[in-house]
Structure formats: C-alpha cells, structure tokens
C-alpha cells in the first residue's frame, strides 16, 4: 500500500493506506481523530466537514492524493482550548441536541466566517444549507453563526 505524508492540525503524519481511502476514514480509523463524523459517505450531509488549506471540504469525498502537501484542520485542531469564536458561540447558544452533526456544522461555519466576516442572514443560510441536522437545531445554528461573526469583528 502507498504511503502518504499529510499535515493534520499542524502535525506531519505518515499514513499507509489503500489509495482510495477517503480522508474521513484515515482521520477516524488511522489517526484516531474521531471528531470528524461519518454521516452519508457521499458528500450530502456535511457531518465530515474539515478544512483543507482553510476551505471547508467533505472529507468523505476526498482522497489522500488530493490533500497531500496541503494543511488539514479537523474539529480537534480548530482551536487549542476549544475557544474558537464559533465554538464559543455554539456554547453560548447551547446549540447541540444529539450533537453528532455539530463538528461538521462548526467546521463549515468557521471556514465560511473566515472568508466572509460580515455575512447577511441570507449568506449564513446559504453557507449552512449543506449541513443536515436531523434534530433540526437550525434556529440556534443561525443565531450562533451570527454571534460568532459579531465576536470576530
């Protein structure tokens, strides 16, 4: 099996896996970073969202060759102490119910706010539309993204 060098949360990692292994499963099964969640495997639900060079991407639909030489950030590496403004806002709003999709929601929101620090409500809805929450915490996600945007200014 081929060996890949990838950078995850600032650390260089060597992984030895089949070339078609999605980054999601490399993170979860090989690197013990289980914060990134499996939801659908086809890029439809957003539970597996990570940052690749700062852009939100679906890790279930990425192969290792697509991320070699790039910098991956997962929920575990979004901030050192869980205090990224988006995490703080999620905490302030107490967004989660079951919580399973929330890492993906937070990763989508944090990449979005980095590129659009002053979003309108419509911008927020468009940005978060790709992430499914079966508990339907959408009302709070909307507010939390707005709070995070305000606090990042």
């Amino acid at each position: 099996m081929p060996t890949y060098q990838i950078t995850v949360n600032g650390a260089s990692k060597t992984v030895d896996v089949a070339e078609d292994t999605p980054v999601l499963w490399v993170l979860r099964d090989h690197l013990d970073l289980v914060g990134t969640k499996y939801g659908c495997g086809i890029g439809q639900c957003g539970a597996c969202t990570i940052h690749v060079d700062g852009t939100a991407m679906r890790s279930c639909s990425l192969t290792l060759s697509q991320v070699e030489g790039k910098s991956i950030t997962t929920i575990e590496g979004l901030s050192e102490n869980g205090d990224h403004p988006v995490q703080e806002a999620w905490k302030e709003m107490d967004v989660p119910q079951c919580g399973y999709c929330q890492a993906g929601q937070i990763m989508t929101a944090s990449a979005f706010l980095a590129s659009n620090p002053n979003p309108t409500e419509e911008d927020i809805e468009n940005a978060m539309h790709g992430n499914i929450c079966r508990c339907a915490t959408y009302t709070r996600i909307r507010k939390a993204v707005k709070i995070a945007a305000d606090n990042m200014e």
Partner: protein
Amino acid sequence: MSTNNINNTLNRRSFLRNTSLAGGGLLIGFNLFQACKPKVIKEPAIDLASLDYNDFNAFIKIADNGAVTIFSPNPEVGQNVKTSMPMIIAEELDVAWKNVHVEQGILDTNNYTRQVAGGSQSIRFGWDALRQTGAAAKQMLVSAAAARWGVDPSECTVSEGVITNAAGETLGYGDVVKEAAQLEVPEDVTLKKPSAYKIMGKPTPNVDIDEIITGKPLYGMDYKADGMVYASVLRPPAFGQKLVSYDDSEARAMSGVVDIFTIGEKVRGLAEKDPGVLNIISDSDKVVVLANSTWEAMKAKKAIKAEWEQATKAENTEEHDKILTDLLDGNKFETRRSDGNITKAFAEADQILERTYESPFLPHSCMEPMNFFADITDEKIHLVGPIQTPERTAGFVSELLGRAPEEIHLEMTRIGGGFGRRLFGNFAIEAAEISDKAKKPVKLVYSREDDMEDGIYRMSIKYRIKAGIKDGKVSAYHLKEAAVNSNMYGLIPHFFPAGAIENYQVDSVAYNSNITTGAWRAPYTNFLAFAEQSFFDELAEVMEVDKIQLRLDLLDKVKPEEDERIQYSPERMKEVIRTAVEKSGWGTKPDNVYQGFVNYYCHNSHVAEVADVEIENGEPVVKKITCVVDCGIVVNPLAAKNLVEGGVLDGVGHSMYGDFTFKDGKPTATNFDGYRLIRMKEAPLVETYFIDNGLSPTGLGEPTLPPAGGAVANAMKAATGNRLYKQPFTKTPELLKVPEKEIIG
C-alpha cells in the same frame, strides 16, 4: 395535579445501597419508583410490551472532598436527560451545579430498571423520585453534621453543599460524608417549593457541550478497543429475500480483510424462543466482512457477489396504497372506542364531511448510523453502543447466546439521534452474533445505505375521518385507521376529540407486511395530528364557523372527571389555544400572511401551533411557527426550547419532504441524495412559549412534532386554496401553487 400532591414518605425498600466507598465518600442508590409511584401510569408510551415502568434508579456519589457525582441512568439521545435529570437531584441535594460532575450510568439491571429513552417519559416518571433522592441524601448529611455539633438538625441550614448551624459554624458535605453514610435512610423528607429552586428553571448548558464542540469521542461510532476489528454486513437487498449463495473470492483478496463468514443461525435459534424478534431482524443468512478499518470492511462488502431468493412477497408502495384503501373501504376493523351510536347519528345528520389522509413510510435518518460494539468471550459479554432500550437488548443477546444476563456488561454511549430507531437493537444482536463467531472484539458499522435499507420504518398509514353535522353542531365523528403492521396503541383513541362529541367511534385495522416497522418520533400521532387537525379546519369551513371557536366549543363539552380514559385536560388545552391566538397574532396579520392553526395533546403535554405562510416569488413559503407548550414545570429552559424548536422543524420537514417508497421489496432511496430532510434555508423561525403553571413536568421530546404538519397544511390551504390530504406535501406540487390572481394582486 399540583406540585405538592406528592407522597413525602419514603419507602425503606426504595434504597438499594447506602454504601461507604472504599476510597471514601458516600454512594446512595435509590429505587425511584418503589418510593413513589406516579398516580397515573396508564398509558404505555411506546408500543413495546416489555417496558416496565415500575422501577427507576439514580445514584449520587459524594466524595470526602465534597465533590458530587450524579450518575444519569437513561440513554441520552439529544433530549437532554443527561443534564436535566441530574439537575433535579442536585436541586434537592442543595449543591452548586458547577460542582456537580455527571456521568452516564451503565446498564445495571440489579439497580436500575427503566433505562429507556422513549415516549417522552424520562422526566415525567423521574420527577418525584429524583427530587426525593436528592432530598434524602441532603437530610442524611445534615443529620450527620447536627450530630457532630450536638444540635438538632432543624437548627441547621444548607446552601450549596455547606451546612451552617445556629452558631454560624459550617461543615461541608465532604466533611460529614463518612458519618452520613452510617445513618439510616430517612423515611420523611421535605421537598423544596418551586419558588426556592436555584438550579431547576435556570437555563443550564448541556453537560457534554465542551466534548461535543471539540470533537471528543462520545458516540458509539467513536468507540475503540484493543484488537477490535470492523464489521460490515451484507443483508438481503429486499424485504422477504434470503441468501442462497455467495462468492467472496474477490473480497477476500482485498486489503485489510480479516475474515468473511455468514451469520443467521443464532437469530433463527432466538426466533424459536422469541418469534417477536423477527419483527426487527431478518432470519436470512447474512454475509459478514471483518476488516482492519471501516472503509476496508465497507469496500470489501461491495465486492461480494451474492444470490438471493424471494422467500416471501416483494412488496410495493402502489400495492400498499391499494391495500390500505381497500381496508378503509372494508369491514375488518377492531373498534377501539365507541360512544353513542354513530350509525344513527350519521343517518340523522344534516350534512356529512368525509376525508381520507395518506402518509408514506419514513426512515429514521439518525445522523449517526446504526453501530454497536461487542466483545464476547467465554468469560464475558461486553457490549458498548447507542441504544434506547439497553435492558431489552441485553435480554435479546442473553437469549441469542444462551448466556446468563449477569454476564452482560453493557455501556451506553451518547446517541447520535434516536427518534425511535434505537429502541430496536437488531444491530446489537448482529454485533453479538458476529463477535461470538469471530471470537474477537468487533464493531459493527452500518453505512448510510445499510441504515436506510435495513430500517425499522414509520409505517405507512391512512386515516379516514367522517363527521356528521346536525343543527349546526358536530353530532358524530368516526375515525378509521388502516396501517401497515400495527395500529395506534394505548390511549390514543381517547385523545381529543374523544369526550367532546356524543357519537364517537375509533376503528383500526392493519395489514401485515414483511417490511420492518416500528416506533418513529411520536408514533401514530406524528401523522394523526395532521389528519385530524386538517379535518377540523375543513369542518369549520363547511359549518361556516370560526375555526378556533369550533375547537373551544368542543372542549367545553369534555368531562375527564367522568371518563378516566381521557387524559387530556380541556382547561389546559384551552389555555394553549388562547395563548397561541394571542402570541401568533391570529386573525390580525396583514393580507400577505396566511395562517394555519393546530392544537394537540400527546405524550401528556398540550400544544398549540400556528404556521405563517407568505408568498415569495409566487411560491407559498412557511416563514414562522408559533408554538405554545404546556409541559408543566420546565426543568431546563435552555434545552427545552431547543427541543421544541427541533420537534417543530422536524414535523415541518417530514410533512413537507419525507417521501420513502418501496419497489420490489426495496426502498427506492438509499441515501440523502434520494431522501430529503429539511435543511437550513427551509427551516422557518420558531417562536416558543411555555405555559407557566407550576404543574409537574410532562413529555417534551415528541409532542411539538405532530401539530407542525397540520399547521403547515392549514396555512397552505389559506394561501393556495388547496387542501392537502397526502404527505409529503411536495409530492403534490400542483397543490402548493398560488392562484394566478393572488400573485398579480
């Protein structure tokens, strides 16, 4: 119904343990329901005959340093019990919430029994007993301090875990915990008045919030053990099929594959002892792939070539549609409630309205796909994972393997969504058979496709409702239910409008399908509320009376004191109706806002919802839902509001988009590309109001969902002129169009 009607006398048998811990400290185990049986436990919350509400326990651990740990016995599926149940204990124990550490209890059949997440019943059943647990522990600690000081306990006061005597001396709980552990458990305790609450009623963040937002391992999917392999299972692709043969030569050669074998024998053995298990699991052989990683297991499964035979009928949605209609037209009903004489009343009626409502099957779509860990050796049975019914599942595994229940150690993980699906532990049964055969620790993981194709779905149902109108009043009401596999249970036939109409009858009939079905968030009422409340809307139009007044007039006739089957309170229902009228601005909105009204009772709570639909770019759009809930005392308003909003949006989403059909025994959708869930842009605003009446808490996880579909349908009628009779509403897009003149106007 007041908060002060509880029995303050504790039964000695209530306490199972009062133990001095080896490492110091006090552990109190408390058998909640032997202490205090709620007055009314008539209604089975979910249709599982095996549920037993008689016992229910909690544990408090107080260390020598005063640190308090509260073990939460019930599975946490997102309904907040891991936070709100310990809050109730901590309130009466009188400790500072910030000093409380909460841990998930394991399945412990000796000491806990109602370890179930289902039916919106955890807080309702736990209310009195959880408070008494905290109060009893507090009294023991105070008595120990009083004894040390040589004063009467009544001279002592407590605040946040510190006991103070009349002289102003203080002792912490940790200082007296050793002596307290030696004391008899008190038989009488004094509970706080709601006005004295310091923890309950305060917005309290989820105890797992830090772990969730930083991605810590919490869920079954995240669980790992030394030497564990991953299992992916190839199951019959269609309901009614059985495995004939398979070729795994290609799969065996793939990377990471550890073993490939079949299971099924033990399930067939289990079914001989307990045939009911076949309602949740197929008795076909299934092919198991064990691999070193999830991806390798899932990938190798796809490389297996299998032949299947259709052992029982391959069913189709069109066929179900016809069967259910034929059943409604037929006479094979079982009568569930009958008041007066509907035949006579219909014959004498001035006018009759009859309508039929249709719903599809629905998958649960928990974001965390089904999974379970099993490590079965000759010495032990270790099970870990997300399960709403741990005890029942452990019972299945014990029978499956022919092993004693005491050998089972079952740990519950945080659950990535339940909605009823994880009441049915078919995945845990599979995991156990796999580990037993492989002699390895195994984690069974469903792909999303497995999850959607091997579902235990919300059954397709049709309701036909007929009302007779005589002299301007509703004189007769006949509700008929035709459902796949099972019918409405418990007290549902006695929900509103039972008791309000003199001639009233509820009949049901079921068609037995080989498609597995079961509880889905707010079973039966999740669709019945839409049917009945759409019907009342139309009935008011036919009668040319005010829609709200029709409901209020009917409620005036209900006398629950004369009929013990009627659990809903007409007074509480009227209060949510009046509040919803006021808060939603009912009847006072500008011309471009179209409103739909629903009131409903289920899971012991009363709810009214108003949907606001506006026309945007020529399309009717649900913009807002006003939701008024009477669930009694709200333990944790922060979580309760979240749960209300989620329930409402879940109801809006599934009634608008949830479409799940079968062709040749197979679901036609297998993932979220073919099955639509509500997303951010479709989610209306939700405004939540709780009725503040100081009454004991009732259900909240489910009751806000059922009214939402009806509120949307009634608002859509107002906006488009079209009545909706079939869910999902997007299935009939022509009915969601606004008449031309409205757009121009």
